[in-house]
């Protein structure tokens, strides 16, 4: 099962064929179901019509015979009245009934008790057929046969109208079921004086009913007014059982209702079950006697033709659908075969062989387009990879050069801390973090003749151009500082030198301080740089008061003003570039001067190294995910 699922999932043609098969099958089932329902309906209606026609025909024949018997009796009844004075003539009359109608097996004229006193209490001339075909007569009423208590006498008398008796077994003769037609005869005063009867055997009717053969397994029966079986395929049921017994016993309301419809003289149809088989039951009444003739047909018989056709259609459709699926599968597989070859080529290309052979396509459809696209893709890939190779090579060269430039730049600023391990009057820590491989920030320091020189600068712009100006500025500072005494002079000289050949209009903010390590006397000059923070031993943390002045390199000959102050031992000076206060997070919020001051207040008791690292950590937590946008330089010195 899993294997089959895998097979379907991995084969487009199989999957497609299955979809088509399912669609076709659904359409077929729907169409067939509709057709089948319609066909069954038609067949059922046809069966009903056919059954009704057969039933009507049979009943017509039965009615005809019953009618002829009624007529035979009625036609001779006037003779009874006419010959009332000749009681023995009645024998001839009953014989006449038998002669006039071959269906009649017996006839009697039963007089009211003691009607003819000379004939005794019971007088009923009776004629019947003998076995050899003759007709014989006798007087019916005896002490053992008090006919006036018989149904055939009493019921028409009480009802005051002709009456067909319920069929009964003939006492006298062979196993024959009979029914008697009784016509009450009245005198001029309206008093009934006799009942004129004719007996007929039910055999002929039974034959007529049994002649109906609608389907191979259909069977027929006829029931009397009280549901008694008069004709049935089960001989033991005849005159012994009632239609109603079983439904009453089993509480089958449907069968009971059908039974009532039958004995009430209705035409109709119903269904029932016998030995686990479903039957249709068609019934129609014999009005004069109150009998009901019924034909029961097996469902499977009625629908045999439709069911046979259904089975054939299902078989044919199954074969057709399987054939369709097979053809679909083959066609789709043929159409999509290049796809797998394209897939192989694509895999080869992916593995690096851009010139892998593509499958041959001879058609002019989408496959051809795909082939062209693949060819174009191959060519583009080759071109692109060539271009990429070239670009990568040149990029690698630049990167390597930049790495070297960075090393050189970093070599320009002092990087060994503590820088003066032998001294106990000053400690210092500094860090330069360029935003790119190389940057425009700078710092430097040295001690010369008991004076501690320190600078921090920031060249406008970033990257290689800034790094070149930075390198120039650093070298210039070392050279110039040897010839001038005060920071202002040094700055002025630096400015002049830088401005002189500044064609690209680059500039550099700059701060220089010269601390007399003995006295704490600090001279300094600011050239457009951020004011450093001074942390007094008393705990005061504030920006140094600095003149703004202009950055270096803009205007040669600018008169820079120096400043001075004396700092106590224990004072720290925190210098930095704008990469610190202007460090941005993703929301573009700046690190800001305020936060720097707060942070420094927290860190004021720390060593320069710890203070610098503490501020850097705080900047990092502010910046978080955002990219570093500017070079960061921090220098912290502690005067002890």
């Amino acid at each position, binding site marked *: 099962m899993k294997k089959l699922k895998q097979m379907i999932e991995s084969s487009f043609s199989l999957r497609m064929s299955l979809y088509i098969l399912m669609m076709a099958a659904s359409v077929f089932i729907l169409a067939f179901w509709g057709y089948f329902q319609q066909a069954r309906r038609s067949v059922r209606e046809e069966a009903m019509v056919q059954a009704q026609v057969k039933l009507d025909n049979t009943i017509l024949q039965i009615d005809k015979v019953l009618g002829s018997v009624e007529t035979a009796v009625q036609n001779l009844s006037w003779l009874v009245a006419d010959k009332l004075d000749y009681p023995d003539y009645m024998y001839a009359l009953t014989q006449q009934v038998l002669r006039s109608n071959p269906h009649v097996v017996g006839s009697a004229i039963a007089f009211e008790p003691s009607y003819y006193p000379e004939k005794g209490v019971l007088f009923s001339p009776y004629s019947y057929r003998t076995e050899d075909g003759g007709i014989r007569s006798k007087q019916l009423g005896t002490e053992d046969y008090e006919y006036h208590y018989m149904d055939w006498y009493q*019921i028409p008398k009480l009802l005051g109208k002709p009456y067909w008796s319920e069929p009964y077994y003939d006492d006298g003769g062979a196993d024959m079921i009979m029914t008697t037609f009784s016509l009450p005869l009245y005198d001029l005063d309206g008093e009934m004086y006799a009942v004129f009867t004719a007996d007929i055997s039910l055999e002929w009717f039974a034959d007529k009913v049994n002649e109906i053969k609608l389907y191979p397994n259909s069977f027929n029966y006829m029931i009397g007014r*009280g549901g008694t079986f008069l004709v049935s395929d089960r001989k033991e049921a005849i005159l012994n059982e009632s239609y109603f017994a079983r439904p*009453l016993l089993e509480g089958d309301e449907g069968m009971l209702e059908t039974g009532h419809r039958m004995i009430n003289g209705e035409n109709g149809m119903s269904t029932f079950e016998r030995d686990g088989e479903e039957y249709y039951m068609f019934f129609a009444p014999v009005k004069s006697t109150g009998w009901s003739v019924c034909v029961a047909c097996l469902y499977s018989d009625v629908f045999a033709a439709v069911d046979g056709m259904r089975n054939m259609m299902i078989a044919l459709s199954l074969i057709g659908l399987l054939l369709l699926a097979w053809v679909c599968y083959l066609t789709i597989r043929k159409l999509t075969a290049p796809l797998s070859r394209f897939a192989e080529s694509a895999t080869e290309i992916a593995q690096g062989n851009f010139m892998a052979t593509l499958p041959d396509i001879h058609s002019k459809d989408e496959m051809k387009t795909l082939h062209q696209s693949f060819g174009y893709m191959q060519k583009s890939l080759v071109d692109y990879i060539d271009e990429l190779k070239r670009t990568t090579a040149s990029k690698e060269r630049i990167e390597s050069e930049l790495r070297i430039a960075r090393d050189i730049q970093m070599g320009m600023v002092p990087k060994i801390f503590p820088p003066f391990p032998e001294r106990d009057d000053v400690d210092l820590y500094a860090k330069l973090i360029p935003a790119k491989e190389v940057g425009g920030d700078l710092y430097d320091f040295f001690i010369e003749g008991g004076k501690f020189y320190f600078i921090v600068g920031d060249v406008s712009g970033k990257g290689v151009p800034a790094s070149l100006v930075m390198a120039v500025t650093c070298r210039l500072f070392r050279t110039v500082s040897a010839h001038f005494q005060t920071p202002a002079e040094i700055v002025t000289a630096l400015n002049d030198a830088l401005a002189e050949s500044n064609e690209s209009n680059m500039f550099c903010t700059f701060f220089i301080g010269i601390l007399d390590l003995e006295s704490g006397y600090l001279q300094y000059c600011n050239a457009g740089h951020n004011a450093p923070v001074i942390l007094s031993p008393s705990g005061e943390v504030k920006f140094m008061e600095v003149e703004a002045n202009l950055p270096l390199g803009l205007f040669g000959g600018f008169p820079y003003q120096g400043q001075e102050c004396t700092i106590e031992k224990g004072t720290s000076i925190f210098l930095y570039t704008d990469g610190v206060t202007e460090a941005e997070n993703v929301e573009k919020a700046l690190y800001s001067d305020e936060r720097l001051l707060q942070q420094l207040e927290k860190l004021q008791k720390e060593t320069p190294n710890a203070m610098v690292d503490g501020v850097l950590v705080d900047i990092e937590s502010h910046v978080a995910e955002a990219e570093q946008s500017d070079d960061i330089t921090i220098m912290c010195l502690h005067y002890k």
Partner: protein
Amino acid sequence: MRRIISFISAFLLCTWALQAQRIVFTPQWTPQAQFAGYYVAQEKGFYKEAGVEVDFQHPSASYSAANRLFEGSSDMITQQLVQAMIAIDRGMPMVHVLQTSQRNSLVLVSKSDSIRTIDDLRGKKVGVWKSGFGDLAYIMDTEKNLDIQWIPFLESVNLFLSGAIDATLAMSYNEYLKIRVAGHEDKPVIRFSETEYNYPEDGLYVSTDFYQRHPDKVKAFVEASRKGWEWAHEHPEETLDIVMKWAEKENVHTNRIHQQWMLEQILEIQCKDGEKKPSFQLDAAKFEGLNELLLRHHRIHYPLDMEKLKGGRP
């Protein structure tokens, strides 16, 4: 020669002895579940076990069970209590030996819903058996001044089904079932067992002569019959098989379902109201009530004594 004479006399002696042992039993009518217990006793060998040989001889329309007993061709018969008391009053020499029925099975079935109570029957045409069984209904007619027009019928229910009469008397275990099964299952019905005329019916009777000559045999027969009925109460299905076998043997036109319903009814009326087992005893109060009723309506001329009825000497 002497040997031959002695052989013949021995043979005659034997046949006489055998005949003396045989009991001819006649139920009221042809085989049906109404007499199931007796057929059971015969089929299951209860009579044989009790040492009696029973010969079942069924009556006909022209030769009833009572006639057979009277003429001596039957020794034992079943009868309804009312018929038996009337017959004894008229000099029929018979003794009551077993009471099977405890409740009255007479019902009045009417054609339409307009007849639902006894009073509704006033002036109506009502069917009654020509052969009898209508005494209690006639008494009811007289006592309640119903002025019913009684129409006698032989045995079929066609008179009623044809609509020729307004109502008919029927036995709850027989004609009433036939009416129900003829598509008239919901006709209104008045049950005598629910009126003051709820007197027991079927019982077993023996000719006085036989009773006096073979008291042991009678006792044995009664005990075995009772055992037969008790067995029938416990095994209704098998009982039905036995009844059907007898019906077939005697060529009775009937069917199993009808006999099944009849058996259910018969077994039910053998138990008094609220009881689940038959007592097989004649209720003295019921007997006295009936005695008085029959006397009042001149069905009998002298009150009968229950002990005498049962063969004792008061």
